[in-house]
């Protein structure tokens, strides 16, 4: 490196440091006067207004604890920011961070943990009383030779709600009240060309708005038709003879099947089930303790491929990060030479994979790698089953992940290289170090101080990189009769067993697995961070 280059670089850095120091200072002085006060009042007002608004809504839903917490927190924030005490200053800086931490980290995690202990899944999303209503509704069935009627709700002379009914088969006409079905003369009921009832002598038909207000009453209106069945309105102009197949006993909290007397009891896991395991739908959402976690251990489709999938997940994430870092760093060093022609063009073209939406790149790569019709095989005149062979699919997935990740490390390394003091490399050169030694002993250790935490973050990201896997191979190709495919990582496998198995969506199980994955990633990252601490000693 020429002395001139060293000088320019150093002077650049120091001038950057100067502006970095003076800008905040100037900003502070600008905002500490009246301007700052006005901004502060405005922001606090907005906050208070939002809090009052939220409190009104919460009170509307009778969430009194939440209202109390909200009010207390808002008052506390107001006091801190309006307080003239010097002791409140650190709090002023801590509060925004804490609020965001609570809102965007702690709350979702708490929610996730909460879900992991419930049976929230297809068939278990309502609360119990809604589920009971649902079962009653579903239990109605058309009687074997039940009649269908054209219907019109009306009021009788006393103003009571009745149904004017015309049998669709025989044309016989009736008036139905809550306690009986009474024939009325056919000519007392007038019908239009569509067959709809337009008037009935002695009764006043209920129409439009008045009728719509009666919706709830109509839903529960039944005219006894036989010992077991009843005529019920269905819509606005039809009534049917329906028989309930189940009877709910509210005292015992059981459903009894009328046909054979089978009793369905609350099984404690959100369903009414009979002695031989028959289940009534819908069920409801309820707490099930550790059963989702015990399913993880006892369920063969989860347990059997777990180690295989786990090993692949770790190697996938490690390979992606390591190779991308190596490639990014290599390119960064190669393009770090000052005075290189078209340097900016090279640099910006290398960032393209990063700038393109990953969704698009993945879909395009899927097409490029098609083994009979893909561009890659056609250009290279090879016949590699990129996506159809288990091992090649793994290679493809890693390659595409590297394509998407290396620009990131290229950018980071480029920045980190600038921050290595030129004196150090100069001194190493004077001491007679070759380029490789220089890189190995000076550049890389210093670089890792800055980049290692980012590598850990990238590892954690790729560990859970659902998109890369799902858009490219959907976890496939399948291997034997395992649910896990060759390229399934833990998160895509979780998706398969929680959302494409059993009855469909199983949020409880999914949350339980993601908690487990969280602990795996957290312990790997913690261990890695602990290792990188030793790197900082090189300073």
């Amino acid at each position, binding site marked *: 490196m020429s002395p001139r280059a060293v000088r320019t670089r150093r002077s650049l850095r120091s001038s950057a440091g100067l502006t970095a120091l003076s800008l905040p200072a100037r900003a502070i002085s600008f905002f500490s006067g009246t301007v700052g006060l006005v901004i502060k009042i405005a922001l606090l007002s907005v906050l208070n207004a939002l809090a009052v608004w939220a409190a009104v809504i919460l009170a509307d839903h009778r969430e009194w604890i939440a209202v109390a917490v909200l009010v207390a927190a808002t008052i506390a924030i107001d006091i801190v920011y309006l307080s003239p005490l010097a002791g409140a200053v650190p709090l002023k800086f801590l509060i925004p961070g804490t609020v965001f931490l609570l809102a965007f980290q702690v709350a979702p995690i708490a929610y996730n943990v909460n879900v992991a202990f419930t049976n929230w899944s297809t*068939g278990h999303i309502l609360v119990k009383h809604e589920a009971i209503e649902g079962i009653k509704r579903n239990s109605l069935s058309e009687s074997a030779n039940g009649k269908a009627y054209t219907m019109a709700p009306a009021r009788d002379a006393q103003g009571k709600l009745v149904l004017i009914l015309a049998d*669709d088969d025989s044309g016989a006409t009736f008036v139905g009240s809550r306690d009986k079905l009474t024939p009325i003369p056919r000519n007392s009921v007038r019908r239009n060309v569509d067959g709809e009832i337009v008037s009935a002598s002695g009764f006043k038909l209920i129409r439009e708005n008045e009728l*719509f207000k009666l*919706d709830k009453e109509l839903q529960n209106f039944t005219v006894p038709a036989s010992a077991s069945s009843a005529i019920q309105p269905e819509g606005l102009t*039809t009534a049917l003879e329906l028989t309930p197949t189940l009877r709910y006993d509210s005292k015992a909290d059981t459903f009894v099947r009328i046909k054979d007397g089978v009793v369905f009891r609350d099984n404690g896991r959100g369903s009414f089930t009979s002695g031989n395991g028959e289940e009534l739908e819908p069920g409801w959402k309820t707490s099930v303790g550790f059963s989702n976690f015990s399913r993880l251990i006892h369920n063969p489709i989860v347990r059997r491929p777990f180690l295989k999938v786990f090993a692949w997940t770790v190697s996938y994430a490690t390979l992606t990060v390591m190779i991308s870092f190596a490639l990014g760093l290599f390119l960064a060093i190669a393009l770090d030479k000052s005075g290189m022609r078209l340097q900016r063009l090279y640099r910006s073209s290398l960032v393209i994979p990063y700038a393109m939406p990953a969704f698009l790149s993945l879909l395009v790569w899927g097409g490029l790698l098609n083994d009979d019709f893909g561009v890659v095989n056609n250009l290279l005149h090879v016949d590699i089953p990129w996506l159809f062979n288990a091992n090649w699919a793994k290679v493809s997935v890693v390659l595409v992940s590297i394509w998407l990740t290396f620009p990131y490390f290229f950018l980071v390394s480029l920045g980190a290289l600038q921050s290595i003091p030129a004196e150090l490399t100069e001194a190493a050169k004077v001491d007679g170090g070759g380029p490789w030694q220089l890189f190995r002993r000076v550049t890389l250790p210093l670089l890792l101080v800055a980049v290692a935490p980012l590598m850990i973050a990238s590892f954690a990201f790729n560990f859970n990189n659902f998109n890369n896997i799902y858009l490219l191979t959907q976890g496939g190709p399948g291997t034997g009769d395992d649910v896990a495919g060759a390229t399934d990582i833990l998160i895509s496998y979780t998706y398969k067993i929680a959302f494409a198995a059993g009855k*469909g969506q199983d949020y409880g199980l999914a949350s339980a697995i993601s908690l487990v994955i969280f602990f795996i990633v957290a312990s790997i990252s913690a261990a890695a961070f602990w290792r990188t601490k030793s790197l900082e000693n090189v300073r």
Partner: protein
Amino acid sequence: MLNKQMARIGTVLLAVAAVALLILAPGAPAARERAHATTLTIWVDNVQKPAVDKIVDDWGRSRGVTGNVLIHDFGKIRDDLKTVKAENAPDIIVGPHDWVGDLAANGLVVPLFPKKAVQRQFPGYALQSFSYGTATNRLYGAPFALENVALVVNTRLARVPKSFADFYKQALAFKRKDANNIALAIPQGSGGDAYHMYPFFSGLGGYVFGRSKSGTLSAKRIGVANKTFLKNATMIDKWNRDGFINSKVDYGTAKNAFVKQNAAFWITGPWEADTLKTAGFPVRLVQVPKIKFRSVPFLGVQGFMVTKFAGTHGVNSLAKDLVGDYMMKSGSQRALAAANGRFPANRTAGKTVTDSILKQFGAAGAGGVPMPNIPQMGSVWGDLGGAWVKATKGADATPARSAFIAAARAIAAKLASGG
């Protein structure tokens, strides 16, 4: 000090003003208490909105109500219905029939009982597709449009096949003419596509779920590797060897090959009707010729469903009147099906279809099997498609027999894992 006091007073004043604004603004709790009694909220996708608007208007005039037809992202209707707040929830939704099992098992849609005279206007499978129950089937929706795949023949390159043997011979003969040619453009790709493959599956005796005695679909009776099908599965190995079906052909490749006349036969559905009309060569659409059994396609049926929220909103009778009666009439059916370019479910309305492509798609769906609507179907797609991919991927393909046995095992394992 003066500054501090001013600040406090200022805050209070501004807060009060802001609160007043927010509470008066629409969407605040006060505004939510609007009269629900005479409006119906309907979730439809943007394609259907104009047709639904018109039908709801016509119906509403005769009933004295107004509809509130909201556009909702089609793919999200099902899952959003599970999380939406009751006050914003729709009374009626549009959706494909294979959502029914999931929605009914969750207790979110209510059974409908249309009049017999109305039901008679629909083919049995259209009503069955919207029926669900663990013990007894109930109807949960009003079907209005059918869709299914058909065998599309480029009649400039090939004749409409008289039999499966004829089809097979013509396809292979065409493939041999040019290295770029594909015998049959049927989409699979590495992920597989059990939907498009279904005619070949059913033609060899395959089925997904059997029915229990009471006529409901049973997730315990998996037919993916039933004896009859396994006996015929050696034909798949022959198709693979001859290059009749190749799983490396994905959707884009298949479409391209047919449009560029590198394939004389294509398996596709009415969503490509415009492609067919503008292809620049004559096409004919038929059902895939009978292999061992009739090679029927999967049927997708679209319909409207009444949600449990209609009852909460006090519009249950209205919603049932609209969906279970008015929307099932042939006039409404024609308009609804035409809006998204599908064949109407109502037979009377079906007779009035004049679009020749649509008519041919309708005929090719005869005898078709509605995609199973039970929620367990989610466990099937990936593995069934995967078995086809493995069995038809060319040189290193798995014998079909073992591929489908493995798929059936994986499906059974996944179904057993459900809580």
